């Protein structure tokens, strides 16, 4: 009967993550390649033209956030199946919606020249300055709306199951324990995290759907206009929350697997539950840090944007990453590729918080906003944090559920990935320090060296990731089929 690393869920649930994770591997790889192309263009090494650069920028941003979120839902789905009674049909439906939406987005970008950025900042989709027309924008916005709807339905399903099992979100976020009404430990960390993600993402997706729908109407009925500041608030609320939720879904893999690797429990203690309540609130309300340079915003909102962004660092710094360090410290943990990635993800998250908090400081934001500093910090916690969680989960699956054994290539690619991603993000931060703007197809001569260095590191990241994908796909078909991992209590007929 399996081993201590096995997660006991139904084999059909195990198999259900194989397709979305394989898709994640392929799409991430392609988007990384596009990322390298952008750097080569900025570094004057190749000549794609500005139009192509902005199309790549749009697909890279959309594709990366979209696919990483899809992988995040796969992580959340996999582990929450231990606690909740979830409907497989809705998980699959989200993937179908995703594929339909992505097809529309791709056609909008590559056949109809849409290049409005993944932030589709109103009224840019409708006023392209000559590059794309109505159809392009409609395909892109419509595709995003379909993708968002799929995710929304999935989070509603998670919410339904959580409320059915725990009674309410207040209970699954541990309020009875926090308030001292109930003694002892509260819900498992995975449940607290899952609840947080449901709350913030339902908020984000409804806001996103509303602004997408309004932008679509505006495309066809130009007299229907939107207040540009309201639109900006809605878009960044949606974008900030949705992009941030990826790491909060991914961390469920850390909560669930690190205890299995270290043989130490990770429980829903009071501190942990308080941290997740803080994260829930802060994630929703700190998005104005994207609007720090919109001085027409109420002053108190901008100041809160700074102060709460600082505070938002506390849950991870004091509870989650700190807890992971305690778990690992003198644990005699058996390091393998999967556990290394999970540990790396905590490192990546924390180190990514540093430049993020620096940039959330209004006086610094004043000279760093929309420079490459910004992609510098979020590539850190996306690449070394969120992606490390996803890759760690994929390596875990092929090892424990697929019979793969770590080899030298795996270890080599792990280290190349770490060092090269640090180099890549370091080159972005450096560009930001010397005031190179983000989202510029053409760079001035003084910014070019950092782009070329970035492209070299980016190529190494892409190659390392290629190795991960090949290893995953080679073993993925075994997942959910190994006799030793079938729980006799769950499957009597198997």
């Amino acid at each position: 009967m399996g081993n201590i690393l096995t997660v006991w869920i139904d084999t059909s649930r195990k198999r259900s993550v194989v397709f979305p994770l394989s898709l994640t591997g392929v799409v991430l790889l392609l988007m990384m390649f596009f990322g390298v192309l952008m750097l080569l263009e900025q570094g004057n090494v190749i000549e794609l033209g500005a139009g192509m650069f902005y199309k790549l920028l749009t697909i890279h941003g959309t594709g990366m956030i979209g696919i990483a979120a899809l992988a995040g839902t796969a992580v959340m789905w996999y582990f929450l199946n231990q606690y909740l009674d979830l409907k497989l049909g809705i998980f699959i439906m989200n993937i179908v919606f995703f594929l339909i939406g992505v097809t529309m987005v791709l056609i909008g970008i590559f056949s109809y020249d849409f290049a409005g950025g993944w932030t589709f900042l109103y009224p840019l989709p409708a006023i392209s300055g000559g590059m794309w027309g109505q159809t392009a924008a409609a395909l892109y916005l419509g595709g995003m709306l379909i993708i968002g709807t799929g995710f929304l339905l999935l989070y509603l399903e998670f919410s339904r199951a959580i409320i059915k099992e725990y009674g309410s979100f207040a209970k699954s976020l541990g309020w009875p324990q926090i308030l001292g009404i109930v003694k002892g430990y509260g819900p498992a960390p995975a449940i607290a995290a899952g609840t947080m993600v449901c709350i913030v993402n339902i908020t984000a997706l409804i806001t996103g759907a509303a602004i997408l729908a309004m932008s679509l109407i505006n495309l066809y009925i130009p007299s229907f206009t939107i207040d540009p500041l309201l639109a900006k608030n809605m878009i960044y609320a949606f974008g900030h929350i949705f992009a941030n939720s990826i790491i909060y879904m991914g961390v469920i893999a850390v909560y669930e697997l690190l205890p299995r690797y270290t043989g130490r429990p990770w429980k829903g203690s009071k501190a942990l539950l308080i941290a997740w309540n803080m994260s829930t609130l802060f994630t929703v309300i700190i998005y104005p840090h994207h609007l720090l340079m919109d001085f027409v915003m109420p002053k108190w909102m901008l100041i809160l944007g700074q102060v709460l962004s600082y505070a938002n660092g506390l849950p991870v710094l004091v509870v989650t990453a700190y807890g992971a360090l305690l778990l690992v410290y003198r644990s005699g943990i058996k390091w393998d590729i999967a556990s290394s990635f999970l540990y790396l993800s905590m490192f990546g998250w924390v180190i990514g918080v540093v430049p993020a908090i620096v940039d959330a400081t209004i006086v610094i934001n004043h000279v760093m906003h929309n420079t490459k500093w910004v992609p510098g910090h979020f590539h850190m916690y996306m690449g070394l944090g969120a992606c490390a969680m996803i890759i760690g989960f994929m390596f875990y699956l092929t090892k424990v559920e697929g019979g793969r054994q770590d080899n030298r290539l795996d270890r080599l690619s792990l280290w190349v990935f770490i060092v090269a991603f640090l180099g890549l993000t370091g080159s972005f931060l450096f560009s930001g320090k010397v005031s190179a703007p983000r989202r510029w197809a053409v760079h001035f001569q003084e910014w070019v060296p950092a782009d070329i260095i970035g492209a070299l590191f980016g190529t190494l990241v892409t190659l390392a990731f290629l190795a991960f994908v090949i290893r995953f796909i080679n073993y993925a078909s075994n997942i959910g089929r190994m006799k030793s991992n079938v729980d006799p209590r769950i499957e009597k007929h198997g």
Partner: protein
Amino acid sequence: MYQQAAWVITLLLSAFVIFIFLFVLMKSGRRVEYSKVQAKGYFLRSIWLVILLVGFSTASYYTLKDLPFERAEGKGAPLDVYVEAVQFGFEVSEEKLQVGDYVAFHVTSSDVNHGFGLYDENMNIVAQTQAMPEYTNTVYYQFEKPGTYTILCLEYCGVAHHVMSKEITVTK
């Protein structure tokens, strides 16, 4: 300069983070009772929390004193300069300024969102704000050095986003 400060702080704190994670990695081998680790760990955690709270509060206190969207007291009435961004260029009401001018840039846009990024001669950003349709953002800047300053677009606005620029000359 804030850019330099941001860079140095980030490097130092990153080095600290790398050190902590490597340290725990090195010490992950020999297993001891978890309750012992917890006892010590939770004590250190409260110290860590206090350090963070003090650090964040101090940083907030000092950095929130000097906000770029507030007129500095004691600098007198600012010189108003009106900036209008449009795909793909800037209209500026005053292109020649003098050292010592305390300028209020009133920035807006007539089509989509743009960014107003003011670069000095060494191509460092010295001030910025968003250029939004229907709204006017005001940013204050005092010119202390003569030279050619360049306004660049800092919000993605379409295919010629990187072409938008405008020079301002500041003389003695």
